[in-house]
């Protein structure tokens, strides 16, 4: 069995770079748009807030795998992008909707008085959001964001339906070739566990580091 692992593990790890890229890019782009949409949701005024709200509701209402397929078959037909980018962008869009909700919730946790105090010393609305509300909301956002990161790590496996060879796809190839699915899938499970565990631990540490002294 040890012999077999020597072959199996490197084979599966060939998909690791893709798994990490998909996760990292989707989370990163999702963070940027999630932040923008979350802020607009709270401060964007009625119309903008409503539009963002509808987008978020639509994304949250659909299975991720369905969105992946829709985006792939729609967008990839219009503009020429690879399966990798199509799938990654789909996951980024999905994550941005969830992250927008995280940002919204985190902003609402910051008391209204903070904004008023900032405005009372002459800060503009944007300055108050940026220098006073966001730094505090950021701290509230880390625990739910850690949860979202764990979800996106595992959602990265969905790109395999589009034929992108990430670790789960590699495991599937391996088991198809060797008829040994159990070991292959267990290895993948171990990798997902380690990735998620390390990410959550890292974010826990960040949360502790930037905790406001009391």
């Amino acid at each position: 069995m040890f012999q077999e692992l020597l072959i199996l593990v490197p084979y599966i790890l060939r998909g690791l770079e893709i798994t990490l890229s998909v996760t990292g890019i989707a989370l990163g782009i999702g963070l940027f748009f999630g932040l923008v949409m979350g802020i607009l949701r709270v401060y964007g005024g009625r119309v903008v807030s409503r539009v963002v709200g509808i987008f978020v509701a639509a994304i949250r209402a659909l299975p991720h795998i369905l969105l992946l397929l829709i985006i792939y078959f729609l967008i990839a037909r219009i503009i020429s992008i690879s399966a990798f980018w199509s799938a990654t962008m789909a996951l980024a869009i999905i994550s941005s909707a969830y992250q927008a909700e995280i940002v919204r919730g985190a902003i609402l946790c910051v008391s209204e008085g903070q904004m008023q105090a900032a405005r009372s010393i002459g800060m503009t609305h944007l300055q108050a959001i940026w220098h006073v509300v966001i730094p505090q909301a950021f701290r509230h956002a880390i625990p739910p964001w850690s949860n979202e990161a764990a979800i996106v790590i595992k959602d990265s496996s969905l790109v395999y339906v589009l034929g992108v060879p990430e670790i789960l796809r590699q495991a599937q190839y391996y088991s198809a070739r060797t008829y040994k699915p159990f070991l292959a899938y267990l290895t993948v499970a171990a990798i997902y566990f380690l990735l998620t565990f390390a990410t959550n631990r890292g974010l826990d540490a960040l949360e502790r580091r930037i905790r406001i002294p009391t």
Partner: protein
Amino acid sequence: MASGKNVIVKVEDLHKAYGSEEVLRGISMEVTEGEVVVLVGPSGTGKSTLLRCINQLTMPDAGRVWVNNVELTDPSTDIDKARQHIGMVFQSFNLFNHLNALDNVSLGLIHVLGMDKKTARDKALMELDRVGLKNKAENYPGQLSGGQKQRVAIARSLAMEPIVMLFDEPTSALDPELIGEVLVVMKDLAVEGMTMICVTHEIGFARDVSKRIVFMEHGDIIEEGTPAKMLTNPDLPRTKQFLGKISELH
């Protein structure tokens, strides 16, 4: 210049309603330079709303407000710029929770007044010293007592060199033992000639420090006058009844 004749705050026929609830029903008042005005009245009568309409944190439905001869209710006025010089102190302190005392005071200096960090730091330390909290500069709000928080909040406002200070029940959230240290700071300010409008039920402060007590009820100014008159011999029985009640308590 101790003439105290310049009008710093002028409010004209201010109206504000929340739904069908009329909170301000045509308030007019003037506050001159160096004057300390205390607003009293039962809760829910619009005292805080009046303060917040002065610096436009709350938009009045009708009426006009001038501060230092600039009309704030004019839509073309840069309200952010005007607010720089209208200090406000809140009942719940509203210190920036993620910043220590020093940064709470210097944040506005850096981002609003455009000071460099070093200058802002020195200025902030000076303002903290003024409220007796230089030694707490590195402390976060969570590490300060209520009285200390409120003094930092006052320093934060003072750093912006306000032409008028608005106090919205600055001691109402404090333990009785901590009220004194805040009142001392406010009293010093008054002595230095700061123009102040204070919503407070600290009748001792009103008697010793203020030049005028304004009694509000149901969104109207019912009666106003010097502390001597208002506390001993007001015109209206209702004023006497209310001020008598809070005098007993404090």
